[in-house]
C-alpha cells in the first residue's frame, strides 16, 4: 500500500501498458516534451521515445481521427485531448467514425481507441476551459464512457479501457490530479461494469462520479451527524451504466439525489433521474433531486465559478429535502 496522486496513478497505467504491449502509444498535444498539460505523461518521452509518446500539432479532429485509424489497423492508441472543451473539434470523428464504424460495416471492424480528456471547473479557467460535457458522450451508442474518481480507478480503468475492443472515452476531472489516495500493492485490476458503493447508507442514495465524489461524501458525513444515513454511489462507468446497483440502492433508501457538475438540463444527471423515476418509480418515497451545474458559461472569478457548480451544502440540502427534513 502506498500513497499516490491521481496523476501518478494515470502515469502508472500509461507506463505499465506501454511496457506490456508495444501496440500501445500515447498521442496528443504536448504529451511529450511539455510533459502533458496536466503533467500526466511527465518523463515518459525519455522512457519510451517520441514515436510512442507522440506530440501532435493543434488539430484535434486530425489526431483523434488518426487514433481511430491506428486502432483500425491493430494499434492501441491512447489519445489525450487536453480538455473536453476542445473535444468538440473532434466530436465528428468520435461519433461518426469511432462509435459508428463497427455497426455500419456489419461488424467487420472494431475500434480499440482510448480517448482521455480532462473535464470540469475549479481552476478559474473561465468559459472556454471549464465545462463538464460528459453528456455529449454518454448519449452515443458505440462509446464506453468512464469517470474515475479514485487513484485505483485512475490507473485500473485506463488499463481496462485498453483491453476493451471498443472506443472508450475517459474523463479525468482536472481537480483530481493532485488528489492523493492509497494504491494497494500490487495495484488491483478493476472492472468496467459496476458502480461502486462508496459509502453504505439506508436513508437516501447520493449518486455521483468523478470530480463530485469528494463533495458528495463530505455531504454524507455531514448528514450522518444529523442522523441521516446516506449511501453514496460512485458510478465509475457512465456508459453503459450499472443501473442494477442504482436500483438496488434506491430499493433500500427510496430516495435519490444525483450530483453532477454538468449543466443540469439535458445533462448527465437527466438520464439518471429519468431512469430512476421510470424504472424504480414505485420504490420512490420522494421525487429524485439533482444537484447539478448552473446553466451558464462558467465565469472566471472564484465566487462565480463555485456558484456555478455543486457545493457540499447543496447536496446536504437536497438530501434533507428528499428525506423530508427540507
Amino acid at each position, binding site marked *: 500500500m502506498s500513497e499516490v496522486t491521481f496523476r501518478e496513478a494515470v502515469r502508472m497505467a500509461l507506463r505499465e501498458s506501454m511496457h506490456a504491449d508495444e*501496440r500501445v*502509444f500515447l498521442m496528443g498535444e504536448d504529451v511529450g516534451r511539455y510533459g502533458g498539460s496536466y503533467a500526466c505523461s511527465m518523463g515518459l518521452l525519455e522512457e519510451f521515445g517520441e*514515436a*510512442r509518446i507522440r506530440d*501532435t*500539432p493543434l*488539430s484535434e*479532429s*486530425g*489526431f*483523434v*481521427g*488518426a*487514433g*481511430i*485509424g*491506428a*486502432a*483500425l*489497423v*491493430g*494499434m492501441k*492508441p491512447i489519445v489525450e485531448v487536453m480538455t473536453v472543451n476542445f473535444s468538440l473539434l473532434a466530436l*465528428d*470523428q468520435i461519433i*461518426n*467514425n469511432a462509435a459508428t*464504424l*463497427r*455497426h*455500419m*460495416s*456489419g*461488424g*467487420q*471492424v*472494431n475500434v480499440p481507441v482510448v480517448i482521455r480528456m480532462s473535464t470540469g471547473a475549479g481552476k478559474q479557467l473561465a468559459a472556454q476551459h471549464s465545462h463538464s460535457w460528459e453528456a455529449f458522450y454518454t448519449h452515443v*451508442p*458505440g462509446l*464506453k464512457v468512464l469517470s474515475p474518481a479514485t487513484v485505483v480507478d485512475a490507473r485500473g480503468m485506463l488499463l481496462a479501457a485498453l483491453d476493451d*475492443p*471498443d472506443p472508450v472515452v475517459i474523463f479525468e476531472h482536472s481537480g483530481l490530479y493532485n488528489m492523493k489516495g492509497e494504491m494497494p500493492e500490487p495495484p488491483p485490476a478493476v472492472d468496467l461494469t459496476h458502480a461502486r458503493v462508496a459509502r453504505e447508507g439506508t436513508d437516501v442514495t447520493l449518486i455521483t462520479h468523478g470530480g463530485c465524489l469528494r463533495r458528495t461524501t463530505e455531504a454524507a458525513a455531514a448528514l450522518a451527524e444529523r442522523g441521516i444515513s446516506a449511501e453514496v454511489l460512485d458510478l465509475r462507468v457512465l456508459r453503459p451504466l450499472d443501473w442494477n446497483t442504482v436500483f438496488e440502492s434506491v430499493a433500500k433508501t427510496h430516495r435519490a439525489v444525483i450530483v453532477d457538475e454538468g449543466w443540469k438540463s439535458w445533462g448527465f444527471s437527466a438520464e439518471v433521474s429519468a431512469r430512476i423515476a421510470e424504472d424504480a418509480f414505485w420504490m420512490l418515497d420522494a421525487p429524485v433531486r439533482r444537484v447539478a451545474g448552473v446553466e451558464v458559461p462558467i465565469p472566471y472569478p472564484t465566487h462565480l465559478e463555485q456558484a456555478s457548480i455543486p457545493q457540499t451544502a447543496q447536496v446536504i440540502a437536497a438530501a434533507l429535502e428528499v428525506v423530508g427534513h427540507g
Partner: protein
Amino acid sequence: MTALPGRGHALHLLTQMVRIRRFEERCAELYSAGKIRGFLHLYIGEEAVATGALRALGPDDALLCTYREHGHALVRGVPMNKVMAEMFGKQEGCSRGRGGSMHLFDAEHRLYGGNAIVAGHLPLAVGMGLGDQMAGRQRVTACFFGEGAIAEGEFHESMNLAALWKLPVLFACENNGYAMGTALARSESQTALTVKAASYGMPAVSVDGMDVVAVETETRAIVDAIRAGGGPAFIEYKTYRFRAHSMFDAELYRDKAEVDEHRKRDPIPSFLRRMIAANTLTEEDLAHIEAKVAEELSEAVAFAEAGTWEPIEELTRDVYTEVGA
C-alpha cells in the same frame, strides 16, 4: 504520352471500367424500381480513376473512399454479388446490408468504406498509415476523396499530420469539378490543387482522370515512391461526373452542353479507340466483355433479390463488440 498497356492488361482495364458502368446503370434502374433507396451517387464518367489507380495498389494496401465508391469496391475485388446485395440492403451484402450504397466495407479486401462525412475519412487514413509505420509494415493507405473535401479543415489537418510524420498515405483527389452543385472555383480561392499539397511540402501530381493509362502510370509512380519510404503524396485526377450528384439533383448548376462536352472524353470509348488504333483491342473484345459483364450483373441482381433481410432482433448487434463472440 505514357506507354500503352499490353493486351491482357488492356482487357483488364476495359473490363473493370465496363463493369462499373453497367453496374451503375443498372443501379439507376433499380433505384427507379425502388429496389435501391437512400442516396445513390453514381461514378459514371469517372471509372478510369478507380480502375487505373487501384491497379497501383497491392492487396495489402488499404483503401478508403467516399460515398461514391461502387467502382472502387468492384475493382478492389469485392464480388459484385455482395456489392449489389448491399445496395439492396440485404444481409448478404458486403456490410451486412446496413450500409447501403454509401458504406461499402470489406475488411478482407481492406476496403474501409464507403464514408459519407465529406473529408471525415482522411484522419482515419492518416492513422492507418501511422499504425503501419509504427508496426514497420510496408503497406500503403490510399484515401480517395472529392475536390470538395479540400475546403474542409480535416483535409488540412490530415495533410499536415501525414507530411509531418512522413506516413505512407496516398491522398487521392477525384476532382470532378463539382461538389454537389458547387463548382471548384466557387469553393476554393486557389483552384490549382497541387499548390495545396506544396504548402505541406508534399509531392503532388495532377493527371488526366479520363485517361485510364495515365491514371495507372502516375499512380504507380507515386505509390511506389510512398512505399519506398518517401512519405505521403497527393494526386489529383481531373475527371467529370456525367450524372447528377445523387438521385435528388435537378442539375440546375450546369448546362447540358457542358456535360455533353465532357462526354466526349468518356474514358471507356476513348480508351477503346486508342487500343484499337494500337491494334491491342478490337470491337469484339468489347462485345465479349459486355456479354460477360451482363452475365455477372444479372447474377448479382438475382443474388441480391434472393438475399434476406437481417432480422430485426439483430438490430443492435455490433454496436459493441460481443466479447467472446
